[in-house]
């Protein structure tokens, strides 16, 4: 009780800075999840197309123009591509992204196509994805036209009729998932960010308290006392874990305010359990750092290096799938990676059977193994430092 009370008194003495630091970091986590755009919905996009039609009376050419106008933002140019000035106008429009794709329909295009000639459409492109989309539209139209032409349709009017009838046949697809993907995505961002905010907060606060207990002369006084050194260390570790759980509870409560029902759903509970285990692991990391660092001035630097470093490397700020293999290889040696991995698995879970839960539990187990390793390392280092 004596050590516990003293721990609380030291916390109390530093309460302003601790509350400030805890509040800023936890608030920052909440803010981050609110401002990060993780839109997973799809929306139709229309490319900007331009067309030069030298077969104005041809039915197939007219229908192609109509089709492109329907699926894109179409601009018709009355230009001659063989003229250098006109060609420059087109090049400038492409360069400044006023258009993404230009289609030139040559003279007598319809007649030659119906006659069975291999008529080529001349195109110019910006090469980006909207240009690719435009290219797809043109190719789709021409493939359909070729298909009916090969079925011995000889009249242009009939060909156009058949193309129009079949080219836009669509199939209805229904997403059967009942997941609120947007809410889970945001909750995932919130809990992934926790790897930074909780780790930074715990390292800072625990190192401040531990630096007091680890002052050389106070440490000596403790070492020469009749209190078992391991018992003393265990009490301090438990005290630190207690503070950590309080910080976690704040973060969780904050999450409830932000995400409401999502947090108390099965997904939310799994997120919470995962973050709880990570908090315990973070407490052991902080305890380890606190046992080797007694210089208060160094704490700020250590907080940034450890918490920011591990969060960047492990995909707390940038999705892990975007990170290079080399970075991910390093991340595998850090508990944060497994914590974020588990979060990413949780948010994608449709069912909660053993098959889907097992990889999450494995990640959680690895995080706890890290926690155990840090406790052992702390004891070894403390025992070595005990007797110079």
């Amino acid at each position, binding site marked *: 009780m004596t050590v516990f009370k003293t721990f609380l008194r030291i916390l109390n003495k530093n309460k302003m800075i601790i509350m400030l630091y805890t509040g800023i970091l936890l608030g920052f986590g909440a803010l981050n999840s609110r401002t990060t755009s993780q839109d997973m919905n799809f929306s139709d996009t229309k490319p900007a197309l331009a067309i030069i039609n030298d077969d104005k009376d041809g039915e197939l050419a007219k229908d192609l123009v109509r089709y492109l106008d329907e699926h894109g933002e179409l601009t018709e140019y009355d230009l001659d591509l063989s003229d250098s000035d006109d060609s420059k106008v087109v090049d400038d429009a492409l360069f400044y992204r006023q258009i993404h794709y230009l289609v030139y329909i040559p003279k007598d295009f319809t007649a030659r196509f119906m006659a069975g000639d291999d008529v080529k459409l001349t195109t110019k492109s910006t090469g980006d994805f909207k240009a690719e989309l435009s290219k797809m539209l043109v190719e789709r139209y021409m493939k359909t036209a070729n298909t009916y032409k090969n079925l011995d349709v000889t009249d242009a009017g009939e060909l156009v009729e058949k193309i129009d009838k079949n080219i836009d046949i669509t199939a209805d697809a229904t997403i059967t998932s009942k997941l609120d993907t947007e809410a889970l995505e945001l909750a995932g961002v919130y809990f992934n960010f926790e790897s930074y905010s909780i780790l930074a907060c715990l390292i800072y606060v625990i190192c401040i308290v531990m630096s007091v207990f680890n002052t050389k002369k106070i440490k*000596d*006084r403790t070492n*020469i006392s009749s209190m078992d050194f391991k018992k003393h260390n265990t009490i301090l570790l438990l005290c630190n874990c207690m503070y950590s759980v309080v910080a976690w509870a704040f973060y969780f409560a904050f999450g409830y305010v932000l995400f409401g029902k999502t947090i108390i759903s099965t997904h939310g509970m799994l997120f919470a359990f995962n973050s709880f285990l990570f908090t315990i692991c973070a407490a052991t990391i902080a305890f380890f750092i606190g046992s080797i660092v007694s210089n208060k001035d160094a704490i700020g630097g250590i907080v940034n290096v450890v918490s920011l470093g591990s969060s960047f490397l492990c995909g707390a700020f940038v999705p892990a799938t975007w990170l290079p293999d080399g970075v991910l290889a390093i991340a595998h040696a850090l508990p944060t990676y497994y914590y974020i991995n588990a979060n990413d698995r949780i948010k994608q879970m449709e069912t909660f059977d053993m098959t889907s839960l097992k990889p999450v539990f494995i990640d959680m187990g690895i995080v706890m193994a890290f926690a155990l390793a840090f406790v052992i390392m702390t004891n070894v280092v403390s025992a070595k430092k005990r007797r110079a």
Partner: protein
Amino acid sequence: MSNVIEVKNLTKSYKEIKALNDLSFEVTEGEILGLLGPNGSGKSTTINCILSLLKYDEGSITVFGKDMKPDSYDIKAKLGVVFQDVAVFDELTVYENIDYFCGLYIKDKATRKKYVEEAIDLVSLSEFKKFYPKKLSGGLLRRLNIACGIAHKPKLIFLDEPTVAVDPQSRNSILEGIMKLRDMGATIVYTTHYMEEVEMICDRVIIIDKGHVLASGTTDELKRLAKIDEKIIVEANSFDSKYIEEIKSFKAVHSADYKERVLTVSYKEGADNLVKIIEYLKKNHIKYSRVYSERPTLNDVFLELTGKELRD
């Protein structure tokens, strides 16, 4: 009386420097043993080795008849230490500090409360119970440091220069407190480089230099090693060297040395030496501000044994 501490052939090196060199001594139950030596002589290293805070290269240490190891918690329960540097929590009040360190030994709340109050009384800090260390003067801080080390009523107490940078009033209070502890049955190992303190409180003294024992015994026994019986001190603004040479030739004079406006005449044996010196000064019209007689000090013993002064 049995030996509470037995140190045999203790050797400890810091890289090239030998801090302790084949050091051996015993501490008897109920005594105040003074470890006297200049700064860097190995006093603190000796204590840290006994407390298992430092590893040593060779030798053996037994405390209360058992080998002292880092996990000797049964022995540690009987030890109290007052370090040279103040070791208290700035975040705790005077009472809370003493309660914390006492709590490392005493589990029972009521007993602990009683012990903490007694320790506060012993070092006269009753008025400052609720003060934080930063509000205390240097002397009061030292007293708090002592209270933290002795509140659990240890049988063996190590005091490592507890009066460094302390005002005379606090120093006297601390020394009286230490004697009280001895009278209450504690054995005390007291390290210092203040010979006056050693002479005032120690039952036995060990003089250490360069990590080994130069001499040991009671203060009287040690003073006999100085080979002088009396010192006459003459304070004068100037002193002609011819007079110093004449004084040196007086009967029983061991040495005469004029330094920093003070002439010190050491006598191998003492009888009417002061009278003879005053008569000589009068006869030669030598002006002086003060003249007095002094018994040899432990500094003289140290000077005799090493050729240098304790505070060099």
